[in-house]
């Protein structure tokens, strides 16, 4: 009898847990019943953070680090996702869906949120010689093949400028794949496609080694 009472208590406690937590406001949806009811923090909490991390520092290189990213860049990309104007494979698989119901206000809020987070510290390069070569490409480009340096748009420290994204401290693999996809024209960009098309695999490896370590 005592055991039955214990078990019953456990079941009751479990059931009670549901009613206690029920008091929290409606919030678990990316698209709420009333869009204005959902602020950017909630959106990040309910959706973005599951892949990009609560402060925009993702664990997996499948997902870019967004902490301290430029506001204008996040706005531009989210709108591109929403309009399906960016069609690299990961954009299709993940962001077309996530962004499809976002309002401009929500996009602004999310962009502000991530851009105000402290940046990720770059990974320490395990190949300083490669990073040094990458630094040269980053700063000077490859003049012999008319490849411009990166600093003019992305800033001297790869911190980004307005719609040109921050690259510093980004996942190395993520950066490499973006360059490869610009090169193969899988990811749209009128600026980056012509630049990336002349980059060799070795040059991509070098420049991302440097940028990821910043």
């Amino acid at each position: 009898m005592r055991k039955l009472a214990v078990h019953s208590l456990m079941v009751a406690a479990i059931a009670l847990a549901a009613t206690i937590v029920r008091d929290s406001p409606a919030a678990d949806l990316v698209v709420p019943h009333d869009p204005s009811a959902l602020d950017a923090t909630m959106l990040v909490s309910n959706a973005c953070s599951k892949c990009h991390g609560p402060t925009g520092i993702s664990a997996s290189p499948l997902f870019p680090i967004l902490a301290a990213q430029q506001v204008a860049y996040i706005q531009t990309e989210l709108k591109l996702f929403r309009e399906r104007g960016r069609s690299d494979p990961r954009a299709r698989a993940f962001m077309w869906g996530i962004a499809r119901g976002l309002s401009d206000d929500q996009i602004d809020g999310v962009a502000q949120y991530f851009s105000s987070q402290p940046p990720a510290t770059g990974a320490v390069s395990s190949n300083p010689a490669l990073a040094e070569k990458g630094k040269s490409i980053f700063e000077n480009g490859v003049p012999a093949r008319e490849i411009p340096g990166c600093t003019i748009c992305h800033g001297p420290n790869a911190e980004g400028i307005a719609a040109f994204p921050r690259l510093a401290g980004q996942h190395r693999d993520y950066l490499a794949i973006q360059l490869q996809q610009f090169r193969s024209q899988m990811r749209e960009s009128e600026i980056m496609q012509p630049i990336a098309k002349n980059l060799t695999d070795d040059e991509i490896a070098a420049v991302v080694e440097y940028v990821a370590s910043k």
Partner: protein
Amino acid sequence: MTRDHLEFLSWLAGARLLRLGTLAAIVFAGAALALVSTPARAVPSFARQTGLACEACHTIPPELTPFGRRFRLNAYTLTTRPPLVSDIDDHKRNTVWLTDLPGMSILLQATYDHWNRPLPDSLVPGAKSQSDDFQFPQQMSIMYAGAISDHFGAWLQMTYLQNTGSLGIDNNDVRYSDHTANNDWVWGVTLNNNPSFQDVWNTGEAYGIPYFPVQSLYSATQPLGNTGMRAPIFTQFPGLAAGLGAYVWYKDSIYLELSEYHSAKSGSAIANEDSSNLNVGGGTIDNFAPYWRAAYERDWGYNSAMIGTSGMYVKFVPSVFAGQTLSPGNVNRYLDLSVDWQYQYNGQHNIFTFLGHYTHENQENDPGLVPTYFNNSTDHLNQLQVTGEYYYDHRYGGLVSFRRATGTTDVPFNGGSGSPANQFEVFELDYLPWFNTKLLLQYDVYNVVNNNQNPFFLAGSTNPKASDNNTWVVGLWMDF
């Protein structure tokens, strides 16, 4: 901190298993709860709801990625579709929230099975002895899977199985969840009908390997399809029990759950998708059976690793001894304790998974049933499963799985030689032309099968061997 947690959990799992030697008994009265555990699957309705491609949640369906685990622990509620109907009260709390798109999905499996030896005519009176069957469908499910409201979601599945010719309730899970704004704490409540179905790491029975079990037309009476062989009791209640559980998920790393299961109907099994359960699924959970689960996950780079432990304590009233009169006071006590692990590498092109579990079961037989139905006052069962998988670009790949059970010899209980031992391997090659369509070639190899569960022995075949049951499977799996 991280390493400390890991070490603590490892220590805990080890300590519990060591203590088992001194723990008393348990039971298996269900001489043959030959239940067909149906595989879990990817569900397109989730994709419709979220707008995410399958790869967001699955390495290869039904195996979950870290994101898929979070989606499920958040009660399937993430959605990017506006509701068709909604209302809120004065405190901005939802009073109703209905999707514009019901989360319906169809799951379809078709198979051609070919086993090593023609089944004897005597097994199926009137049938010509053959060594194959062709099932379209092997099974078909219709289900609701998706959000019900802002904090509620459900997976409700009905399945038709050709090997029993019946339509019934399959895996069900309704869950509630909420979380703190910073996501450090996610908590939830699950109401489900199959211990381990609620788990998110694919190492248990309900979501585990083989993801595509053979369900031979004869599987109710023989090990074809990996059924009918002795397995821990916590795997024996798909659709036969109802459980209420609560869980917390802390900082995307520590998972704790406590559930209580009760038999759906005292004294007999309910009709699930496998009507053969009605014939063999005798036995009732006495009162409530607690089930617990702890896991630690760490994600870094493309990697995700988990180590965990789970257990279930079941007081079981056996009623499987046809024609026998048992006192309601005859109760066998089972304690299942498991350790399990998973390592996933979910890269840009390559996916590796290594996962498995080890379960030790103590079975204390009611003194009133010894020695008539059990030789021993205490029986043991140990089950080990280890699986490795590799896939490229979510398109090509396969898996190799090994499962072995050993335990105490008990002739009246296990029949035949009295050994509960069984061992088999699954080799599978997969091709996914689309993410929701899997073509597979599978070969199941049986090394050890108790004669009492070997149909070739039971039907009087000459020189019956475990390998008679080896099976080739050509399969198609679609969901839409």
